[in-house]
């Protein structure tokens, strides 16, 4: 029996003796209980999540809120549970932006898919009410350090309204961190690709129609937002009101430089500062994005370059390019079960120029800022939510990522999942 298995066993044991309420094998562990006693993690390497250097120190949190972060230990109250973090790493809980967690269970099984409503314009559909806290997928993602997710609808031109959820909840109302945080627009590809002149013209028309239709929608929405008192209720425009009063962000999904330019200019016309989701070519339009203060949810580094002549590692190196150009970005991979690999997508970026703490920032502080929850989440700072985890090694590397403890709002999270249960079940069968 080798070392890592022992570690896993040890965690299971620790959880069993008191940190988690119920560890009997089950597909979805029960959520943790409210924090009742202060917890101090001492002598731990703290990755603050704001991009600044990690340091060894102590973090104390109570009633779900961080009360102390410092290089030196603070005075603990008598009832403080002290966790020795020597040689370990403490990170803010990672945030999976643009995810379908809880909306989709089994990709190929239609009955388990609630991520894509029919129709092209659906600003009024709300992902959070379909969010299934008992999804078997969620705990498997959580086990790798992901604590929060933006639950995002897909499809059509205006997919709907996303919400931010914490991943350890009894039901969607408990899970909600920020309801209806944003509206998601899928920007059409604007390159005419047809060689046949007739088809090319048709494509050009379609592009123009797309922009015109979107423009009309936003004009109407803006007008409705300015004066909805005397109008009949329009559910779609009502849902878009938040864009204009600042309560909702506009997320434009696109990867192309051309589309990003068009999308940002479009949003600015309506006084909106969008977030770009995708952003594979964001480094090409850095000035535009910076001047317009547009952030980017970079969809993954584990992908192939889009152009043949691109460097083989351009996707791996894009985060470093964005950082160098001063664009605010976070890293995600989209989808659901695959979100457990976002730490490694960021890890890969560090092999191609991104500094380590920037990589951590791209999963934590930057994500929280983009989702508008930075006042409570995303960094390990006094006054912020105690949403953090302890890893025995480098959480951005599969050979180091080993989550020993996780807290969300101070609640100890049972980081087991159905896959660990099956591992135990069959290891036991074989006597390993």
């Amino acid at each position, binding site marked *: 029996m080798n070392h890592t298995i022992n570690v896993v066993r040890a965690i299971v044991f620790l959880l069993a003796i008191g940190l988690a309420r119920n560890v009997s094998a089950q597909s979805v562990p029960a959520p943790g209980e409210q924090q009742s006693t202060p917890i101090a993690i001492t002598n731990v390497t703290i990755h603050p999540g704001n991009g600044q250097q990690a340091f060894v120190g102590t973090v104390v949190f109570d009633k779900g809120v961080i009360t102390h972060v410092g290089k030196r230990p603070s005075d603990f109250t008598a009832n403080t549970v002290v966790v020795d973090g020597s040689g370990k790493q403490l990170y803010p809980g990672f945030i999976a932006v643009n995810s379908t967690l809880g909306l989709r269970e089994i990709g190929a*099984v239609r009955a388990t898919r609630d991520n894509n409503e029919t129709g092209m314009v659906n600003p009024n559909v709300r992902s959070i009410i379909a969010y299934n806290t008992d999804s078997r*997928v969620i705990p498997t993602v959580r086990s790798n350090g992901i604590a929060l997710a933006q639950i995002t609808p897909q499809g059509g031109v205006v997919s709907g309204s996303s919400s931010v959820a914490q991943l350890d909840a009894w039901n969607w109302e408990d899970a909600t961190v920020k309801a209806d945080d944003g509206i998601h627009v899928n920007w059409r590809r604007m390159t005419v*690709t047809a060689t046949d002149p007739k088809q090319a013209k048709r494509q050009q028309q379609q592009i123009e129609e797309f922009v015109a239709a979107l423009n009309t929608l936003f004009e109407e929405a803006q007008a409705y937002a300015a004066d909805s008192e005397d109008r009949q209720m329009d559910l779609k425009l009502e849902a878009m009101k938040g864009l204009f009063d600042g309560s909702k962000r506009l997320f434009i999904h696109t990867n192309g430089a051309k589309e990003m330019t068009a999308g940002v200019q479009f949003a600015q016309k309506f006084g909106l500062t969008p977030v770009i989701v995708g952003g594979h070519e964001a480094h090409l339009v850095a000035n535009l994005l910076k001047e317009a203060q547009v952030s980017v949810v970079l969809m993954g580094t584990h992908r192939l370059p889009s152009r043949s002549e691109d460097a083989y590692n351009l996707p791996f190196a894009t985060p470093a390019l964005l950082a160098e150009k001063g664009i605010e970005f976070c890293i995600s991979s989209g989808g659901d079960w695959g979100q457990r690999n976002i730490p490694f997508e960021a890890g890969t970026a560090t*092999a191609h120029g991104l500094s380590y703490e920037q990589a951590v920032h791209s999963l934590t502080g930057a994500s929280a800022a983009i989702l508008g929850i930075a006042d409570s989440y995303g960094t390990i700072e006094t006054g912020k939510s105690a949403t953090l985890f302890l890893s025995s090694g480098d959480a951005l590397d599969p050979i180091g990522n080993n989550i020993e403890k996780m807290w969300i709002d101070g609640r100890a999270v049972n980081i087991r999942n159905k896959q660990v249960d099956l*591992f135990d079940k069959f290891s036991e069968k074989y006597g390993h």
Partner: protein
Amino acid sequence: MRFIALIVLLCLSYSLQAQETFKYNGVHQPDQHVWYIYNATIVVSPDKVINRGQLIVKDGRIEQVGSDLNLPAGAIQVDAQGGFIMSGIVDARSSFGMPDVPPQQWEWEEPNYDPQRMQPVGWNDAIKSSVRAADIFTPTEKEAETLRSFGIGAVQTYNQDGIARGTSMVSLTGNGRSETLVVRDKVGAHFSFNKGTSEMPYPNSEMGSIALLRQFVADADWYARGGNNVEFNASLQALQAQRELPWFFEAESYRSALRASRWAEESGKQLVVAGSGDEYQRIAEVVQHDDTWILPVNFPAAYDTKDPYDRRWISYNQAKHWQMAPYNLRIVDENGVEFCITTSGCESPKEFWKNMRLAVEKGLTQESAIRALTVTPAKVLGVSSDLGTLEEGKIANFVIWSGSPFTSDASLHQTWVGGKQYNIQDMKVNLAGAWNFKLDCMQQIEFAGTITNTKKGYAFEIDGVDSTSSKSVSISVSSGAIGLDIHGYCKEDSTAHILCSGFMSGNTIRGLSHMPSGETAEWVLSRSATDVASIDEQEAETTAKPDVPAYRVPLHGFGQTALPKQEHVLIRNATVWTSGPAGVIENCDVLFNNGKIVRVGQNLSASGAIVIDGTGKHVTPGIIDEHAHIAIENGVNEASQASTAEVRIGDVVDPDDLTIYRQLAGGVTSSHLLHGSANPIGGQSQLIKLRWGQGSEELKYTDNDPFIKFALGENVKQSNWGDFFTVRYPQTRMGVEQIFVDRFTRARAYEQAWKEYNSSGKRGTPPRTDYELETLLQILNSERFITCHSYVQSEITMLMRVAEQFDFRVNTFTHILEGYKVADKMREHGVAGSTFSDWWAYKYEVIDAIPYNAAIMHNEGVLTCLNSDSHEMARRLHSEAGKIVKYGGVSQEEALKMVTINPAKILHVDNSVGSLEAGKDADVVLWNGNPLSTRSLALATWVDGKRMFDIEQDKQLQQEANAELEELLNMMAADNSPNKQKAQQEHNHGHGCLDKHDHAHPFLNTQVEKK
């Protein structure tokens, strides 16, 4: 014009009575025309040119050609006006008079696995070998006219539908009843990889087409050896008869063409390949096969580079091909490859001749061009005695140009077909000479002058008038009418124009004029002296041959300019992960030379070796991806039948796939290319090394144990294919088992039939060679090994039990995501597991997939490896192995083995690859850190000791590639052709295939449901 009208009338009557056996209406009018065409440069054959020659045509054939032939009595004279005469084009690739082949359009309906044809032909509707072009030849004058406008006098025409297309014929392009046009029937047998209008699912991939052709040839042999006593089959009968004919093949790329060539060589045939114009890209291989080619000149248009956003999507491959395509014919020619030129692919004569001129400008000699248009096709089609040159006795097929067709201002005046004259563009009326003009009116106008023929038109020099005078005459000719615009002769108004129009007869032009006053008046222009030769002599345009631009192989920015050489390398003081008995050694050296590892150990030295300081670095064996679909072209899945054991991935390896280079950058050196998982018994696998730059055959391992792909579960029972796919057996896991039992039972019976035949002294009709059953028999005899796509424990156990029932062992379960549930059974059976690190939740059968799977299988003693099944993830297999440390606590050394020595063992090639041990292939990767870490990257990758990737060279390559591309794009920007192509954004299939609910049809889309 009158003359031409008469010709048309003559032609009509001529053709009606041309056939001896035909009854006729009216009075008999024999065809006995004699023509005397004079005053031309005559290209008798590519190497024989007569200046100022004459041509005598009699009864549709060349009677005589020479430079001082007398005018025969009763000959009709044609003044070629100093023009250029050569043989009409013989186009070996045409569908003249053949039925239209509508492009196949998928309709959403249940696929039909049975043939639609009711005739006694073969089982597959794409095999149309019994079609005879002459039986279905129904030409129209409209088609013929178009062909003649290119200068084509004869074509090889055939039914361009199906994989086997039957026989072709050679036809003239004249206007007449079809039987008068046939020069030769059953000229050649035609093939392609395109199933055309057949609606049967099989084949839906290029490898399926190849397998179908291979079986078809074998069946025809069997038919000839007694199979005809077993069944009647018109398709097989036809192919057997076509054995003696030349075989023609239509291919859509040079790669497909070479595949066709290899198939034909198996059948003992050379091909005539209708190529695509990219043959220069692997000219050495083209030369090796010694086929004859039919090549197009439909060069790609330049791309539109105006939009800076879109410009970026033009790839080096596209831009470079735009530059190189006009050099293709020259390169092919200079390498001694025999070729014909076809007009097919060119929309118009204008495009065709513009491109021919471009090819000549790029260095194709005019002689080669003419040969490829005339002599070679005639030879290839076996009609040299009738066509291809203007030698005496041949069919009078020739064209009259105003000058050499390879000069830009030449125009084609007449195409003669079978001794009949067809006007294409009026010859310029020869007005050269001294003329007197006279106009009768109130005010009589008279003057004299000299007309000269110019390239653009005519010039009229009025006697006694200098260039400063306002007096002038301009001349235009349109539809036979001659127009004059006379300026400065009106007495009332010296600025007025007098417009005249008239017709010419002999040396007189008469007509009517419109005076500024509104009157009309008659005029006459009479020639007092002629100068026949006044058209400017064509000056030979002698421009220097341009250099052929350098290009990369493959034609990518990251292609090779020269193949890397084997290096003699000593890496010093690194952490060496041997994946062998020596384990992981710190401060260790690795020495390799001549493609092999010489030693692994401490304090090595070697004189002459490149020494690399490995301090702080790591060295591993090259990564082996046990499950890949890279470098496969035109279909990964032959998704049609439940068993397609006869198809071979090895037939369709694509050495130009850029993914090869990108994966080398991730340390991958070998890939096991698998068929997809659309059917229980898929196709045969191909193991390759990533020898970037080399040809498809050179990528392959040789003498390794062959493998085949099997599959179980949702994909093969078509669970996620949509509601129409509920017809094919099997639809349940129960049926999947029965497919295996059935096919293996048949394979045993097949073996028995051969044994009996062989032991009975080979009497009677031999059993039919069946490539599907042969392959399955290899499995039964442990000569071929199964890699089986699998997920759930029930089916995994099932296949092991079926194998045991037939007394063999399953070699590998791939995916095997529930392998952990039956790991003990797997160990007992002796099967290996090749799995993903952490994939799950994409379909129902992976609901219990766990990332601890590899660890449990490994701990239970199952030989375990990790694979990518992805163009992208293979680049990170090293850190995918790292996940097995995380999930289940396998040691780092064992984790790395899961992507090195373990896959080598699973593939039975651990004697040569998979570990760093003396004597093994020098497939070596140098890393900047722990190879299992997502935070490390490969610095260099050697394959057989050749440095195929180097991170510094890569940076240089990127710069070079982008600089070359930029230069090409600037050249394109300077190109002022009106119809530019739009850039095509490329599609990556790098994201695996988790969610393949796209709406593509599985038989048209070859990337179906791989996972």
